[in-house]
């Protein structure tokens, strides 16, 4: 009976993911935070590629190492890759702002897989989106990897670790990690955009102007991302606490009942 119940819950979640993706993705046009093709001058675009490259390489190396140690790691990477891909191209209407934007999902993957693998996942998701979904650009991919992948993953990971170190509840730590990962992404996007397009203008006023413009949409969306991250961490805690221990999200004594 318990197995049947668990199976139907899995199927329910499965259907929910597919249906939600289908409905939400077709609700409004696919415009969001990724910096589009040609917005950044070539020198700035190249600089962001240089900044992003070591993180992507470290992610590749870590993925190779972990996959060789434990095969059970693979489904979690697959799940997170799908989640980050869907979430980061899912335009969500924000009624208080009247605009659409998307969460990033890298806070969640940063917590569960570690920040470097999360950067790699973000890079793959951004590449597919830039190639086939007219969402972000190929030349600006370095900047998008740095904002969404690097800053999002590390902000989420470090926030979660710091709060857990302070013995903060799992769901609150997950929530704060998701929230700060999202906001860190958009703060970085503002900095990238301001530095790239400013010309002779001063950097700081332009940076604040762009950041303030992001606030109406991204403030509530960050809260949504926090809730999603907390939900995923708690769900995995209930379904696969052993996996969270393996990934060092939790200590073994924290799941011992």
């Amino acid at each position, binding site marked *: 009976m318990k*197995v049947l119940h668990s199976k139907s819950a899995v199927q329910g979640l499965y259907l929910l993911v597919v249906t939600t993706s*289908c409905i939400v*993705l077709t609700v409004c046009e696919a415009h969001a935070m990724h910096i589009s093709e040609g*917005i950044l001058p070539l020198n700035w675009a190249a600089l962001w590629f240089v900044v992003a490259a070591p993180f992507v390489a470290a992610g590749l190396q870590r993925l190779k190492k972990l996959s060789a140690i434990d095969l059970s790691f693979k489904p979690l990477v697959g799940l997170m890759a799908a989640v980050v891909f869907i979430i980061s191209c899912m335009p969500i209407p924000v009624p208080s702002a009247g605009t659409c934007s998307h969460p990033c999902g890298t806070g969640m993957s940063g917590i569960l897989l570690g920040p470097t693998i999360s950067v790699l996942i973000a890079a793959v998701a951004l590449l597919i989106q830039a190639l086939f979904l007219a969402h972000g*650009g190929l030349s600006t991919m370095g900047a998008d990897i740095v904002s969404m992948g690097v800053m999002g993953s590390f902000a989420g990971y470090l926030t979660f670790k710091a709060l857990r170190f302070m013995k903060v509840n799992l769901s609150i730590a997950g929530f704060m990690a998701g929230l700060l990962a999202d906001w860190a992404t958009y703060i970085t996007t503002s900095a990238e955009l301001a530095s790239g397009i400013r010309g002779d203008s001063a950097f700081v006023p332009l940076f604040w102007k762009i950041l303030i413009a992001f606030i109406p949409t991204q403030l509530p969306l960050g809260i949504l991302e926090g809730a999603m991250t907390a939900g995923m961490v708690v769900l995995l805690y209930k379904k696969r606490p052993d996996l969270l221990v393996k990934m060092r999200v939790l200590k073994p004594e924290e799941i011992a009942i």
Partner: protein
Amino acid sequence: MFLLIYTVFFLFPAFSLQQHSCGAESEKWQGIDESVVKKFAKEHGREAKEPLINTDQGDLLLFVFLLAGTIGGFVGGYYWRMLAEQKQDKSADGTGNGHGNIH
């Protein structure tokens, strides 16, 4: 609590929206790449170029997004199921929890 929610969801966003939308025509449900990124870029003389593979043509974009969402949803569901089944297998084997950390 009510005040916090009210401030976060209505007051602050409304104030910020009013701050940045002065003089700009605002289209309902516009993406923030249009309302923020492209708007500021245009103000500073930078325009977005056409993507390498331009799927933003008519309903083609809806199709590719629907396809991407469906594939992503199936992949996510498949791996979630795999994770949940691994747990059941472990319970059946009686192998129990963790064999040391991955890191």
